[in-house]
């Protein structure tokens, strides 16, 4: 049986396609723009492998003596939900491949970099570190 593609279906498919495209574009543009900005701030060529290493690097918190890393909350699998280390609140998956909202808003990315670098590393991240992590996350 042949599937008849009528005009309404065509436009629906078209709209879905457009929306997917827009999300991908939003993500790509936010990431691209930020990478460019980090470059202007002094970052060299970004490196996803360095980003992954930093993401998984365990740091001992000076005040509490706790071992901390990005994985503490986001877990080892970026496509799975994470859990806030202190409150237990559910964190949506970080990987853009399963959570299209991720890496689409520059301001949000910057906010979380600032907040979470400080908690995890005890300092803000350098433009190079942010560029590497962004490159790593964008491919997940």
């Amino acid at each position, binding site marked *: 049986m042949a599937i008849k593609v009528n005009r309404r279906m065509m436009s629906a498919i078209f709209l879905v396609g457009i929306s997917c495209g827009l999300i991908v574009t939003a993500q790509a543009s936010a990431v691209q723009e930020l990478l460019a900005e980090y470059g202007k701030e002094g970052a060299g060529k970004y490196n996803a492998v360095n980003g992954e290493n930093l993401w998984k690097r365990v740091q001992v918190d000076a*005040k509490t003596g706790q071992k901390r890393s990005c994985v503490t909350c986001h877990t080892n699998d970026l496509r799975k939900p994470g859990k*806030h280390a*202190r*409150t237990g*609140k559910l964190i949506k998956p970080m990987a853009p491949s399963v959570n299209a909202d991720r890496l689409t808003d520059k301001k949000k990315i910057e*906010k979380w970099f600032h*907040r979470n670098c*400080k*908690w995890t590393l005890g300092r803000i991240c350098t433009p190079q570190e942010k560029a590497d992590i962004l490159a790593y996350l964008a491919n997940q």
Partner: protein
Amino acid sequence: MVSSKLRVWDLPTRVFHWGLVSSYVAAWLLRGDQYLHLHVLAGYLFFFLLLFRLYWGLAGSFHARFSSFIRPMPEAWEYLKKAAGGKAPRHLGHNPAGGWAVLLLVSLGLMISITGLLTLGVEEGHGPLAGILEREWAALFHASHQALAWAMLSMVGLHLVAVFRESMLHRESLPLAMLTGYKRTDTRARTENVQPHAAVALALLGVMLGFSLWWGRGYLLHSGNEPYLPFSGPMLSRNALWEEECGACHLAYHPSLLPRRSWNRLLTQQENHFSEDLYLDAGTISRLRAYAVTGEAGNTVTEASWKIHNSIPAAKTPVRITETSYWKNKHKDIPEKLWTRSNIGGRHNCTACHLDARQGWFEDGAMRIPFNGKNMTRIM
């Protein structure tokens, strides 16, 4: 002497008696905050039965009518004196002292019902008397409700002693008579059976059953992932930015739970928000502040917010809800091992036990300690 039985108590009187016993016991056992919805159901049935008893005291069969058993006070006193000496004459219906006990019990019951409705209305903001008076009155109504319940319990104690004594004295089981309706014939008194009035009793039971089903309909009809909330709190302000920013890391605690000065301090100290740097821009901070302040303005809309606010001294600016003395006092019986359980996680996690924490209501009836995932036993 004809040794035969006589129907003394009609069916509605018996349904009333045991229904009142059951609803009183149920309400007593379900007095804990978390059972409020069922406590109130028991209370409505109790109240309804008492109102029915007033009607039946005028329209019921002979021994159910007030006119048949309300005797002058001195007569009741005389009876008590004789009873103390073990020489009280037998009465087919209520004896003269018992008649007054019925009146006293019914009056106490009605007062319990009314103070209960007042407590429900003024403290909780529910029921037909919701919000008729300021919350300041709630403590008085609540205390009276409890004191009257104790008074009725002691009257019930006296009633049981009297029933036991009289049963022994006349060698007949009065409790059994209240079940079957029959007593031994007494030649000196009326000798006709009273009407059974089965239809009235059936209607009485039907109304109570119907009301109970209607009251509990939510438990039966509710579907979906969200838990059923028997009580809905007042309309509280909501704000998408608040939910998003605060809710990203923890429950977006409703602003009504802390005073304005606390929110101001929290938002001013965003670089050290419980040792995290929030890094929110000035625009976001001021929008959050504006919402917190308006949300706070309605701080007495829920029982929880009213009580939290009243427990904070004017000179104090708590940054945690759990610092306030109302919160501490309300949670003082919770053992430490419960707080650290994996499905609770800590004092910050209101949602673990308060099904309506997200809405900001904290209704008594929406509180329950979750089962322990492992062995399904309750710690408390």
